[in-house]
């Protein structure tokens, strides 16, 4: 990742959505219908999303980057770099463990510099068992204003994210959203 230095803004941890906000956002049927219009299983789309995640991971110097679509009870991983193990095999995770769901619910960037110290995420099994130590994700907002998912990076160690990191993530998120729109019918 871009090393925060003197004079470089470090993005603070952002507040997580409340359970009520999460449920309201995840069960928004207009949002889900829009996700349903995306041909997210198309191999060409996956290849392009994988390429973006590989570039994002490299730019931010982190091992994992994902593109997710957050459904009502689960998140789908539709593009990824550096992901293996059960999440890759299952194609996603239950929604209640999804960091990206918080970006979906708030429509804002969601940053967790140190998951083990974060009051919302410290008991998340993706943290306690699978070892997610840090996270930054930007919402994927469609032209109609629905937040379909997130583009994110995941670290195996606690760390700060700089404003430059989040700018790079946001630019890649715009690319991801344009691609998803291209594969929507």
């Amino acid at each position, binding site marked *: 990742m871009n090393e925060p230095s003197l004079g470089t803004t470090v993005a603070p941890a952002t507040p997580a959505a409340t*359970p009520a906000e*999460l*449920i309201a956002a995840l*069960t928004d*049927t207009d949002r*889900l*219908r829009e*996700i*349903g*219009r995306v041909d997210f299983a198309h191999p060409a789309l996956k290849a392009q999303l994988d390429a973006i995640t590989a570039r994002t991971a490299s730019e931010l110097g982190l091992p994992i980057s994902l593109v997710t679509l957050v*459904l*009502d*009870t*689960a*998140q*789908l991983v539709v593009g990824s770099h550096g992901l293996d193990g*059960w*999440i890759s*095999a*299952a*194609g*996603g*995770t*239950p*929604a*209640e463990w999804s960091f990206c769901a918080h970006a979906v619910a708030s429509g804002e960037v969601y940053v967790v510099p140190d998951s083990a110290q974060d009051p919302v995420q410290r008991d998340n*099994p993706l943290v306690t*068992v699978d070892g997610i130590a840090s996270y930054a994700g930007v919402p994927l907002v469609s032209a109609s204003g629905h937040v379909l998912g997130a583009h994110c990076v995941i670290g195996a160690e606690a760390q700060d994210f700089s404003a430059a990191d989040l700018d790079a993530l946001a630019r890649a998120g715009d690319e991801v959203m344009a691609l998803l729109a291209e594969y929507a019918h």
Partner: protein
Amino acid sequence: MTLAAKLAHVPAQNQMTGSDGTQNLTDDGARRTVTRYDLARPTVGHVRQSLERLVPEDFDSVWNGLLEESGIHGFEQDRESLERLLTVMTLSVHPITAICARAQAVRLASFDHLSANHPTAEVEPPP
């Protein structure tokens, strides 16, 4: 109630009850949970609850149509019934139904992969 519990909670009336009044907790592992993750295997009842939340006004017609197409009664807890229901839902022209099925399929796949590598335990029956 936690978010996980709200998303995964199955109303008591949807749970299978035996002729002696006891609940069937061992049918194909349906009432088991991966303890380290607190993840229960999805059942037909979980799908029903999701659809009740997503299509409240059309729920009865949507649900009854799905039961008829999949040839189940709606209170089963076995895996085969769940998979038949999800298959029908995935092919549905109703977009919300198909998305709901996709999400439950991810939850089922998550359970399968996690239960293969972590201990599971029988879920406590509701009081």
